[in-house]
C-alpha cells in the first residue's frame, strides 16, 4: 500500500465533490430561484409603492413581524399621514435589510424601526439571505469578501443549489412557491394580509402554542451597523424612531434578569445610535392567541390592536412633523380584508383550503376540500348566535351543520351556479364550540361568507355583510 497514493486518494475525495459543488454554483449564480421569488417580488412591489407615495412619509421598517403586525393603512388613517410599510423578511439580516431600506426611503421621511431581536445578532448569513443574494443580487454577493462568499456557497443546501435548474425546467414551480405568504396578499400600503385570522387552522394554533421564549443577544457588529445607518439617515435628513418588535408575551421575560439585561442592551444600542424608542419592550408583547404562525407574526386581529397602540404612541411625532399629502382612502378593500371581515370569529380547523381571491363570481371565497369542514368559535359565556352564510354547490345536494358531533340543521341546496343563503340560530357554550359543515359532494362546495353573529362580539356590520338569501331551502331537525 503506497502511502503517497493513499494521501492522494484522500485529497481527491476532498477535491472532487468540492469541484462539483463550486462548479454547479458558478453555473447557476444569478439565476432566479423559486425560493427567492417572494422576497424579490415583495421588495419590487414595496419599491413601487414607495415611489408612488408622496413624502415626507412615515416608513415602517423591519422584518416580517412588522410586515404582518403593523398595518400602514390603519396607521395612515389614524395619524392622518402617509405611511408605507417597508418591512421585508427578517432572514435577510440587519446588514442587508438596512442596505435595501435605503432604497425605499427619501429625505424628509421618518422611519420607525421595528427590527426583530434576531437582527441584533451577528450570526452567519442565513439561508434566506444567501439564496436571495445569489439569485437576485449577485453584485452585492460578490463584494462580501472571499471568506464569506466561500462560506455562503458551502452553506447552501443541495436543494437550493439545484433549484434554479428545476425552475428552468418547470417554470410553474415559481408560482407554486406562493402560499399564504403570496405577494398577491400585499395591499397598496405594503401591508401583508396573509395572516387573516380566518386562516388560523388548528395546526397553526398548536404550532404557536409550542413556541418558546426568544433567545436574545446583542452583538457589537450589529450595534455598529445600526450606528452607521443612523449616521447615513442623519446625513440624508431622515428621522429615525424605534419600536420594539411585536412578539409573544412570556412570563420568562419578566422573571429572568438576564433576559431583561439583553432587552436593555437593545435599548442602549439605539440610544448609542441616537434613535429614540416610542415604547418599552413590555408594550409590544401580546398574548399567544393573537399570533398567527410564528413568534413574531400577529394575526389580523392582533395586527389591528398592535397598529392602534403604535398609532397612539406615534401621535405626538405625527402632530409635530411635516408630512406629504395623504391619498384619498379607497373604498375598495383588498379581497383578503373582505374575507377577514366576512369570516370574523370563524376559526377553521380542517377541511378548508385557502382563499380564492378573484374567482369568476368576483366574491372572495373559501373552498371546502374534504368530506367536511370543521370550524370553531370561542365564547366566554353561554350565548345565542346566528350562523349565516353564502354557499354554492354547483351540482346541488344536502349540506349538514353538525355541532360537537350532533347534527343540527340540514339545508337542501338547489343545483345552481349562484350562491344560496344558509341561516340558523345556534346556542354556544362557554369555551370552544366546534361546528362541521358536511356536504354530499363536498368537492364542489364553495363558501363566500360565513358569520357567527354573537351578541356583542362582532364588529359593526359593513363590508362583507352576507347577501340576501337566494333559493333557501332549510330543513330544521
Amino acid at each position, binding site marked *: *500500500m503506497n*502511502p*503517497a*497514493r*493513499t*494521501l492522494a*486518494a*484522500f*485529497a*481527491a*475525495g*476532498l*477535491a*472532487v*465533490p*468540492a469541484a462539483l*459543488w463550486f462548479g454547479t454554483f458558478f453555473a447557476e449564480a444569478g439565476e432566479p430561484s*423559486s*425560493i427567492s421569488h417572494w422576497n424579490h417580488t415583495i421588495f419590487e412591489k414595496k419599491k413601487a409603492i414607495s415611489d408612488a407615495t408622496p413624502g415626507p412619509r412615515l416608513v415602517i421598517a423591519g422584518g416580517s413581524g412588522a410586515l404582518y403586525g403593523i398595518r400602514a393603512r390603519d396607521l395612515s388613517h389614524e395619524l392622518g399621514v402617509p405611511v408605507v410599510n417597508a418591512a421585508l423578511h427578517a432572514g435577510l439580516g440587519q446588514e442587508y435589510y438596512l442596505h435595501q431600506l435605503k432604497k425605499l426611503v427619501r429625505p424628509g421621511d421618518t422611519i420607525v424601526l421595528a427590527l426583530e431581536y434576531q437582527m441584533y445578532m451577528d*450570526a*452567519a448569513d442565513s*439561508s434566506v439571505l444567501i439564496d436571495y443574494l445569489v439569485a437576485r443580487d449577485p453584485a452585492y454577493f460578490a463584494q462580501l469578501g472571499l471568506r464569506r462568499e*466561500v*462560506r*455562503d*456557497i*458551502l*452553506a447552501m*443546501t*443541495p*436543494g*437550493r*443549489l*439545484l*433549484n434554479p435548474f*428545476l*425552475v428552468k425546467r*418547470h417554470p*410553474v*414551480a*415559481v408560482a*407554486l*412557491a406562493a402560499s399564504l405568504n403570496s405577494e398577491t396578499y400585499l395591499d397598496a400600503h405594503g401591508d401583508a394580509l396573509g395572516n387573516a385570522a380566518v386562516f388560523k387552522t388548528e395546526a397553526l394554533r398548536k404550532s404557536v402554542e*409550542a413556541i*418558546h421564549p426568544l433567545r436574545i443577544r446583542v452583538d457589537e457588529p450589529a450595534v455598529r451597523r445600526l450606528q452607521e445607518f443612523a449616521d447615513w439617515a442623519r446625513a440624508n435628513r431622515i428621522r429615525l424612531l424605534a419600536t420594539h418588535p411585536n412578539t409573544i408575551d412570556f412570563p420568562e421575560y419578566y422573571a429572568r434578569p438576564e433576559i431583561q439585561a439583553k432587552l436593555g442592551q437593545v435599548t442602549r444600542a439605539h440610544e448609542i445610535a441616537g434613535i429614540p424608542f416610542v415604547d418599552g419592550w413590555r408594550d409590544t408583547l401580546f398574548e399567544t392567541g393573537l399570533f398567527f404562525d410564528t413568534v413574531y407574526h400577529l394575526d389580523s386581529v392582533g395586527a389591528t390592536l398592535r397598529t392602534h397602540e403604535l398609532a397612539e404612541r406615534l401621535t405626538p411625532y405625527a402632530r409635530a412633523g411635516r408630512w406629504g399629502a395623504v391619498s384619498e382612502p379607497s373604498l375598495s378593500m383588498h379581497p383578503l380584508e373582505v374575507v377577514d371581515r366576512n369570516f370574523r370569529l370563524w376559526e377553521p380547523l380542517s377541511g378548508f383550503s385557502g382563499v380564492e381571491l378573484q374567482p369568476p363570481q368576483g366574491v372572495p371565497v373559501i373552498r371546502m376540500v374534504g368530506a367536511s369542514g370543521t370550524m370553531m368559535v370561542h365564547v366566554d359565556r353561554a350565548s345565542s348566535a346566528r350562523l349565516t352564510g353564502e354557499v354554492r354547490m354547483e351540482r346541488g345536494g344536502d349540506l349538514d351543520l353538525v355541532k360537537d358531533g350532533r347534527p343540527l340543521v340540514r339545508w337542501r341546496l338547489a343545483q345552481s351556479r349562484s350562491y344560496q343563503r344558509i341561516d340558523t340560530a345556534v346556542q354556544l357554550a362557554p369555551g370552544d364550540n366546534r361546528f362541521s359543515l358536511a356536504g354530499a359532494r363536498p368537492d364542489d362546495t364553495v363558501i363566500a361568507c360565513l358569520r357567527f353573529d354573537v351578541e356583542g362580539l362582532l364588529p359593526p356590520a359593513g363590508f362583507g355583510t352576507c347577501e340576501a338569501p337566494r333559493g333557501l331551502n332549510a330543513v330544521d331537525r
Partner: protein
Amino acid sequence: MLFNSYAFILGFLPAVLAGFLLLGRIDRRIGAAWLALASLFFYGWWDPRYVPLLLGSAVVNFLAGASLARQASRRLLALGISANLLLLGFFKYADFFVGTVNLATGTAWPLPGIVLPIGISFYTFTQIAYLADAYRGEARDYDFVHYLLFVSYFPHLIAGPLLHHAQVMPQFDDPGTYRVRLPNVNLGLVLFGVGLFKKTVLADQLATIASPMFDAAAHGGTPTAAAAWVGGIAYALQIYFDFSGYSDMALGLSRMFNVELPVNFFSPYKARDMVEFWRRWHMTLSAFLRDYLYIPLGGNRRGTGRRYANLMVTMLLGGLWHGASWTFVAWGGLHGLYLVANHAWRALRRRLGIPALPAVAGIAVTFACVVVAWVPFRAADFATTLRILHGMAGAGGSGLASSVPALWPFVIRADVAPELSHGAWLALALAVAFVAPNIYQLTGRRLEPCADDRPPRAAAWLAFACGVLFFLGLKALAAGEPSPFLYFQF
C-alpha cells in the same frame, strides 16, 4: 477552540503540526514542549483564566507522583487523591451539593454559581490514575514536559479518551514520534474525516429531531408515543455520533502527531447485551471505572450480592461523574440495574441451560434499554423525564398517524429540489450505527486486539471515501456556528 471549527482545522492544526515536526527534528524535548504549549493555548482559547488551574493541577500531581514513585506513601496518595477530588468537587459539584442540601432541608443558601472549567473531569481522573499507579510502583519518574503534555495533550484534553500514562508516555519518549510518518498522517486524516462527518452532518442533524421533543416536554407537554420514541432514538444516535465523532477526531489528530490513543467506541449499539454495551461505549471510562473503582471495591471477588452492590456503586458514581445532577445519577443507576439484571440473567441461563437470545433480539432489547436510560440523561429534570417516559408508554396517545409524514424519505416540495426528511436522516443514522462496519474495523482493528494484528492502515478507496466525508463535514460547518460537543459539559 472546537475540532469542528474552521479556526481549528485550517489554522491551529496545520500550524501546530508543522511546528511539532520541525522542532521535533531539532530536539524531541523541544517538539514536546511546543506541543504542550500549543495544547495550553488550545485550552486557553475558551477561557484563559483556567489555564493556571490546569497548570497548577499538573505541577502538584507531577510532584506528588514523583514522590510516590520514589517512596510509596499511603498518606501522600490519600492526600493527592483528596486534593484532586476536592478540586473537582468545588468546581463541578458545589452548586449540586448546595442545591441538594437546600432541597433536603428547606434552606435557601445561594448557589455559588461556579463556572465549570472545561475538561476538568477528564484531566482530574487521568491524574488520579497516575497517582494510584505511582503508588503501586507502576509509573516511572517521568520528565515534567512529557507529563505536562500527557495531561494537557489537546486531542484528548477536553473530552477524552481518558489516557493512561503508560499508553502515551513511552510514545512521547520515542524519537520516531517526531518524524513525518505518512501512513499515520493518512490514518489520521481518515479518522478525522469520519469523525467530522459524524459530528457536523449526523449528530447536528439528529439534534434537530431530538431537541424539539425534549424541549416541548420541558415546557409541560406529554409527547405521543411515536414522538417520544423517535425523539429518544434520535438523541441516542445524536450522542453516539457526537461523542464517537469527537473520539474519532481525537484519535485521528493524535495519529497525525504519531501518537496512538486508545479506541473509545466500537459500534456500541451493535451490543447484544448491556455488559457488551459497556465494553463498546466510552471504553476508556469503562476501563477507568473498572480498574480504579469497581475492582478496588472488591469487584466480583466477594460474592454475588457484593458484586452487584459494587456494580451499582460504580455506575451511580459514573453517572455523577457525567454531571452534577440527580438525573445523571438516575442514568447511572439505570445502567447499574441493567448490568445487575444482565449478570443475573446470564447466571440463570447458565444454571438452567437457557439458550441465548437471537442476536437481533438481543441488540433490539439492549438498544431499547439504552434509549430509555438516555431520557433522564438528556432531560432537563425529573418532571420532564417522567413526562417523556409516560409518553413512551403511550400516555400521550400513539401519535402514529401524525408521525408517518415525517418518516417519508424526502421532503417533497414542488418549488425546490427534494431534501432529506427527518425519517431519512434517522434511517441513515440507524444504518450507520447498526449495519455499517466502524472505521476501526475498516482500518484493520478488532474489538479484542490480537497478537497477530497488523498495524491499522487506510486503503486508497477508504481514503477517497473519507475525503468525501471530510468535504461534507466542512460543508456542514459553513451553515452556522460550530456546535460544541455534548461531552464538553462533563
